[in-house]
């Protein structure tokens, strides 16, 4: 479904991503791991059109997304839930959700999807008319995911969905990711929470200093004792783990 080929992104003269290549197949959850500054968020931002890549290709079902502005990337079926949620605090939960359906004109179907999101995240039902700025971090994360789902994405990009959340809320977010997986949603998940990512992901890529340091099935890493240590140190996993 998605193929990122030799992606290079620079912030001025500083390289954010250096030659990242990865693939996401339909129905998969692919984890993007790595410490702070590894290039996870930059990779997702480049896919979504938020930052301009210097070179490389991002092919979504054959179409190069790097030629598109962000508002057209979402029209190609790619929705990003960015780091720190970035909900519109001055708008209500309802308005935030409706903004998620900006690209759609099928009003009746949108309303059905809104109801589906409210059933998935019941806390949003209670706060539907409330200002989104008053929501807790966990509630905002649920709103951000619900908002992204309303564009009916073929590929959902999740950037650090557990960031800043209490453990109980992290559980809720990962439960939601697991539910989305059951429904066949394709997800590229950038996370620092290694153990939880390995639980839900089919495959993972580990980034280090803007490069792919490891790529392989998540199952191979779940039992690897040294993976998390290496990951935290920003090192490539050992060959034992990789095998």
């Amino acid at each position: 479904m998605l193929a990122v080929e030799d992606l290079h992104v620079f912030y001025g003269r500083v390289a954010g991503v250096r030659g990242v290549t990865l693939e996401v197949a339909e129905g998969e959850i692919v984890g993007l791991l790595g410490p702070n500054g590894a290039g996870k968020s930059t990779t997702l931002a480049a896919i979504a059109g938020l930052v301009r890549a210097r070179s490389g290709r991002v092919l979504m079902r054959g179409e190069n997304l790097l030629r598109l502005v962000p508002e057209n990337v979402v029209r190609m079926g790619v929705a990003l839930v960015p780091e720190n949620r970035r909900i519109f605090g001055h708008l209500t939960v309802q308005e935030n959700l409706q903004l998620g359906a900006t690209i759609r004109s099928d009003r009746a179907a949108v309303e059905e999807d809104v109801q589906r999101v409210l059933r998935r995240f019941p806390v949003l039902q209670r706060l539907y008319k409330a200002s989104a700025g008053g929501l807790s971090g966990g509630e905002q994360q649920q709103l951000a995911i619900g908002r992204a789902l309303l564009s009916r994405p073929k590929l959902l990009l999740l950037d650090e969905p557990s960031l800043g959340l209490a453990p109980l809320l992290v559980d809720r977010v990962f439960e939601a990711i697991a539910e989305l997986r059951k429904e066949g949603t394709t997800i590229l998940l950038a996370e620092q929470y290694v153990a939880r990512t390995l639980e839900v992901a089919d495959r993972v890529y580990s980034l280090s200093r803007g490069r792919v340091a490891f790529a392989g099935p998540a199952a191979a890493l779940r039992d690897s004792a040294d993976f998390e240590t290496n990951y935290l140190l920003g090192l490539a996993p050992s060959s034992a783990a990789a095998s």
Partner: protein
Amino acid sequence: MITAISYLIDAISLGSLDALIALGIGVVFGLMGLVNFAYGDIITLGAYTLVGTIAALSFPFAAGILVLVVVTVAIALVMERVAFRPVREADPTTMLITSFALSYTLQNLEILVLGARAKFVALPPFFSSFTTLGPLQIPNLSLFVIGMTVVLLLGLRFFLKRTSLGVQMSAAAADFAMARLLGVRANRVIAIAFGISGLFAAAASFALVAQLGQVNPTLSVLPVLIGFAGVIIGGLGSLAGATLGGFALGFLTTILQAVLPASLSQFRDAVLFTLVIAFLLVRPQGLLPGRSSVERV
């Protein structure tokens, strides 16, 4: 007492006009961080249009107003498309310089094509007569400007709160990049913001021409300067702040006119801007700071 009420109505009227100008500037600034110094030229060109259609072409008043609105909105849209869109992703100073250059070019074109001398117009007698309320005589123009401002403000509020495009614009003003990620078309919302600023410029053009009965190339210089100050003291990036800031300065201008001794009245604007500086020293963030950091797109 009667005099005080008269001054109060004048102050509200001038405050309304400055609020309109500040909003016209603020609606674009809030969205794309552009301080459009050419905004005054939209107002001036609108004023020339109104005077030209009514005085030179003998259009009926209503037709003149219609043409005025069409022209100012069109100028604002063309300005966005031709001058600002190509430099939108360039360095912020590039947009600022573009705005200066555009303003300077338009001012000189006005002088070249239309001449530096004032052109006069006679509007319908309604605007130069009064409404009598007991002992009070209220200028119809003041009532009209206040009413027009209220209608435009309510219209803008309705648009931003109750329409899908308005909510998109409101979201884009808060976080443009996020709004785009959700599919909000940058070109469309920015064009709408310029269109709204053009509409508000039409209202300001009419009010200025009606007050002075004439137009000249410097017609909008002081009102727009006050409008800019209104946007800043209102709080950059906040439409409510721009409205409040513009209104406060217009109101204060009239009050200063009334309370300053005759020997100082010629320094009214100097006193006004001194007060603006003093206010910003105490509250640099303005009256109602904007919610966004004005992210460039």
